[in-house]
């Protein structure tokens, strides 16, 4: 690209200038200036919009510190904005946002990366052309539709048979993972041994670990299978839905990263006698690692900024679950709090209840800005490293 532009410029420089009349040349220059100015204005408009939003949110967030101070907001879990002695502890909301985002990532990343690997390296091209748009349709579904699904279908399902579902899920997720881990461990442990003993020792290790893993999975499956989920509107429900919503982002960005890995690298790996699985796991995935990291960060941003689904299906209880990783309890997120409390927050008198919502918005904005910058940095670093 850059080379092309250079030669074009050089060509223009080397050519004799077109002879135009004086007024025609002036007109041309003015037209060029106006055109450039217009394009610059249009381009900077979106950048300005971000700055304006940032400015206005920060301006309305600031008075909160004057009215209520800093300490309570970040350290207290007591959220009673409408009480006579209002309390504005937002710690539970920070934990809630973090928890559902973590859950969404746990759902979206393994699924998304696996799907991306499948799309870029496993499926034939014609199938990929069909499957990728279908996954991207997930991004086109309105979030209120996801919320409705979470509230009307998933929540009752979790209440009625959440335990058994979790029990089965442990097997579905755990069994392949355990199998993979056991094979890798057995391989590593027996790498240095001589051929005949190697096979025997390997089978022994696989057998022992296999029985152990089976027992562990059976135990975990039974423990989870007996669980009663009192309320289906909880962090787990929302995590699953947010994970599905983040999937298209994760899939398409990591697929791009995998595609960007040079063909030569794959061919080199095959030439050394690696199988397709070995090539994928040991060569392609590490080479695309930072691109996949960028995909994860973008997925995080998608999950943390989502409002409608969490407002409808997370239960909105302003508490830190006990223990903190208990996904079966209802949580409240920053976004849902902003959406839910905005109507009654009195902007006419400029109350703390109004400004605190802007402070939350500011925190979210700063967080996603940081995420964006870091993903930008990661992507740039990859480009440099792979020389693309």
């Amino acid at each position: 690209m850059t080379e092309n532009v250079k030669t074009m410029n050089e060509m223009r420089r080397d050519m004799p200038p077109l002879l135009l009349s004086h007024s025609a040349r002036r007109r041309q220059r003015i037209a060029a200036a106006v055109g450039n100015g217009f394009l610059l204005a249009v381009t900077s408009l979106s950048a300005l919009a971000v700055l304006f939003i940032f400015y206005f949110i920060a301006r309305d967030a600031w008075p909160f510190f004057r009215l209520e101070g800093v300490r309570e907001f970040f350290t207290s879990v007591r959220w009673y904005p409408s009480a006579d002695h209002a309390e504005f502890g937002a710690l539970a909301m920070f934990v809630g946002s973090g928890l559902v985002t973590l859950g969404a990532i746990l759902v979206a990343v393994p699924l998304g990366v696996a799907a991306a690997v499948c799309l870029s390296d496993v499926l034939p091209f014609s199938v990929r052309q069909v499957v990728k748009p279908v996954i991207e349709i997930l991004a086109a579904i309105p979030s209120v539709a996801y919320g409705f699904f979470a509230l009307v279908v998933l929540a009752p399902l979790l209440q009625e048979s959440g335990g058994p579902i979790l029990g089965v899920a442990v097997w579905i997720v755990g069994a392949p993972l355990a199998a993979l881990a056991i094979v890798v461990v057995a391989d590593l442990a027996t790498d240095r041994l001589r051929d005949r003993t190697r096979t025997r020792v390997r089978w022994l290790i696989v057998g022992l670990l296999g029985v152990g893993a089976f027992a562990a999975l059976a135990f975990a499956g039974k423990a989870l299978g007996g669980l009663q989920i009192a309320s289906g509107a909880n962090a787990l429900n929302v995590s699953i839905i947010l994970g599905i919503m983040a999937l298209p982002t994760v899939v398409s960005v990591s697929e791009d990263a995998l595609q960007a890995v040079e063909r030569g690298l794959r061919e080199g790996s095959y030439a050394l006698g690696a199988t397709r699985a070995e090539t994928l796991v040991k060569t392609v995935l590490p080479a695309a690692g930072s691109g996949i990291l960028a995909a994860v960060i973008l997925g995080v941003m998608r999950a943390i900024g989502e409002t409608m689904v969490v407002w409808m299906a997370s239960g909105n209880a302003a508490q830190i679950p006990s223990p903190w990783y208990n996904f079966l309890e209802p949580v409240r997120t920053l976004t849902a709090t902003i959406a839910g409390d905005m109507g009654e927050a009195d902007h006419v008198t400029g109350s703390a209840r109004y400004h605190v919502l802007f402070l939350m918005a500011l925190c979210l904005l700063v967080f996603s800005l940081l995420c964006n910058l870091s993903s930008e940095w990661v992507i740039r670093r990859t480009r440099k490293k792979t020389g693309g």
Partner: protein
Amino acid sequence: MNTWNKIVLGIVAIGMTAGLATAGDANKIVVDGSTTVGPIAKAFAEYYMGQHPDVNITVSESGSGNGAKSLINAACDVAAMSRPMKNSEMKAAKDAGVLPIEHIAAMDGIAVVVHPSNPLANLTIEQIRDIYTGKITNWKELGGPDRPMVAISRDTNSGTYETFETMVMNKAKMGEKVEYVGSNGAIRQRVMSTPAAIGYVGLAFTEEVKPLTVNGVEASAETVASKEYPISRPLYLYTNGRPKQSSPLHDFINLPDAPEGKKIVEDLGFVPSN
């Protein structure tokens, strides 16, 4: 900052004149506010437009607080509210040159509802308060099955919440495990599908859930009208000043007192005011 404020005020003023331009039209009535009062206003609007095809009435439901805001900003003609206007709102209205006049649309009871499979039949106000403060956490404490309770509340944005807070909670604070949802319908949906749930909704939203008696009084039209039922309240329509005699707005706002209006209110599961 001051110049910015001026610019923002300017924009708001432009918006307000635009709002006035629509709200000023005598044959157009804009209603905004409570999701509880919304169905009544919609039924009134349908009835009235059937009688007067030249009048156009739009009803939106954005919550009592937003209704008050719309009235103050002259973005609507009628604010439907499930609670009386607060002093702060009255003051803001006065500052904006708006004089809110109160009309009672109907009486409403807040029914306390549980899943149909729940064997419990009665709760006292104190018990309900203890459930929502988090003092009672299991149904067996009330003689029900051994099942952790799921207490569901309307969001703090709603008039229903405010009424519940004043009439039941009596200044006690909601427990941290209480879940919040955004509408009467959503509470009904959650209680309908959650065996351990308890929630509170307007009288019109008790289909397929089980309303409990409170202090031994059934939540019904009669008990609400007679104010026997402990959690009952009037629902309001607010206008800016008294509407002119025989204007469409005047007719509309006085529908609750007409026999047809009372019938509409009854059909919707509310109670006509006396």
